[in-house]
């Protein structure tokens, strides 16, 4: 891949994301909706509880923000481009699949960074996060976004239509949250299930978020979680490149 085509395509993807109302809503507005939702729930729970529910829910909110941005802001637009046959047109140029997929990352990474900064600012303002915890939180978020985007690439590669994508993505996001213990804490699950889920990226991401934001004891060393998430991201991206189809037609 040439650096020029990657840069130009990344810029084109950024423009498409910002200029298309549907995509901008999915990638930018909807994640903020999750933040507002969880903060509102925490606020109401706080009125009748001694514990700080907002602090408990903030890691889950960040998890949903990053996941929804990566899934809804990446998969649906890509599947839509395939249905419009824009990808088919791209396939007649020397552009490689991996260049196309990776060109989707920069603008989404930037949006994700914006969310993390927002959450960190909020958490710092309420003394939820320590100064030492901020870099850990940032690296965890970057690793988590890499994992979510790579899973999004695989979904974009296999889902046949925008309708199918919209129907599937909500389920996948909830499944990820469930597997990560963001909905039902892992400690409430049988030991065997916990052991298995501990080797999956969602649980590692929730663990680092909960540790850095909510002050829960870390179940895993942060560096091992980063490696696991980035490793999964690399494998999933390679898989997506292999199964990605430019075309809806049977050749």
């Amino acid at each position, binding site marked *: 891949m040439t650096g020029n085509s990657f840069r130009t395509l990344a810029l084109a993807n950024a423009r498409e994301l910002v200029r298309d109302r549907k995509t901008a809503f999915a990638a930018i507005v909807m994640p903020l909706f999750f933040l507002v939702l969880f903060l509102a729930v925490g606020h109401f729970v706080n009125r009748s509880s001694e514990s700080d529910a907002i602090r408990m829910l903030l890691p889950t909110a960040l998890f949903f923000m990053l996941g929804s941005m990566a899934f809804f802001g990446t998969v649906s637009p890509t599947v839509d481009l395939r249905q419009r046959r824009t990808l088919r*047109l791209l396939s007649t140029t*020397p552009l490689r699949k991996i260049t196309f997929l990776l060109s989707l990352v920069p603008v989404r990474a930037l949006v994700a960074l914006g969310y993390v900064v927002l959450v960190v600012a909020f958490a710092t303002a309420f003394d939820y996060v320590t100064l030492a915890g901020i870099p850990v939180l940032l690296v965890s978020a970057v690793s988590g976004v890499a994992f979510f985007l790579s899973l999004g690439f695989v979904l974009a590669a296999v889902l046949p239509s925008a309708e199918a994508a919209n129907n599937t993505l909500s389920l996948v996001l909830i499944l990820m949250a469930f597997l990560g213990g963001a909905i039902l804490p892992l400690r409430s699950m049988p030991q065997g299930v916990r052991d298995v889920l501990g080797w999956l990226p969602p649980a590692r991401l929730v663990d680092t978020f909960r540790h850095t934001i909510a002050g829960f004891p870390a179940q895993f060393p942060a560096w091992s979680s980063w490696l696991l998430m980035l490793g999964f991201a690399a494998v999933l991206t390679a898989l997506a490149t292999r199964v990605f189809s430019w075309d809806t037609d049977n050749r």
Partner: protein
Amino acid sequence: MTTEQVSEEDPPHTATTSISVHGLTKYYGSVLAVDGLDLEVRSGELFGVLGPNGAGKSTMLEILVGLRERSSGTVEVLGSDPSNDRERLRRLVAVQPQQAELFPNLTVRETLRLWASFHENPEEPEAVIERVGLTASADHRVHKLSGGQERRLLVATALISRPELIVLDEPSTGLDPNARADLWDVLLAYRDRGGTALLSTHSMEEAESLCDRVAVVDSGKVVACGAPAELVTRHAPHDVVSFRRAGSPDIEAVRAIPGVEETELHGNRVLVHTSRAEEVTNELMSMTPAPQNLVRRTGGLDSVFRVLTGRTLDDEKDG
């Protein structure tokens, strides 16, 4: 149906042949879309594939550029087999598939800069924008363009790579006459600079006005191949006098005119085939009632197609 082999037009397989196709077949399940098709496209020519909808034109073009796999036959495009060497062909061949859309929210200029970035030695986007007549729309987003402007932009994305060969699937479909003429000018200029173009069309007018040579395709086969004028001389030398059916002379009376070789009804028009058009026209004009909207012209590719297949280009092939 008369089937004519291409052999009489076959150039020898040399470096001056850009595309060489022999015995190409393509099945979709049990449906035969391309049926043992033979074709040679010479370097530097504007070659048209003319046929009705469903004749197998798009399938053939997509096989040539590697968008589809063939069932059997041999295909060589610029010396490469599209099935095995698509990487090379993507650098040398520019394609405008039918029903392809560009990024809707990019402007014309951004789109061409993007397409230019895919190639090693592209043309200047501004120069291509000017050549396809989109200077005034350069900062308009794609989804705001008219159908004709979007078609021209698609052609521009194909031209920007300085391709050796350009393959266009029905490039002028949906264009108004002015936009179509502009597009033809762009393609002729490309050909005049040494490029080779292969385009499919179901427009007889486009094939006659634009193409150096034409392959007439029906039911997945080439039924005739050659220069448009040559095909007309060979297969449909008769003139055609046509007039509106309503309010015109009785058909039986027309058939009785000396020199009338054949009459046919085509929609609301009567077509009279003759090799003595002057005399027949005079005779028709002297009849009562006089023919309405009478038009006289020499045989065209539509006549060639009708002679060779027994159908017209407007007929759609089932399936």
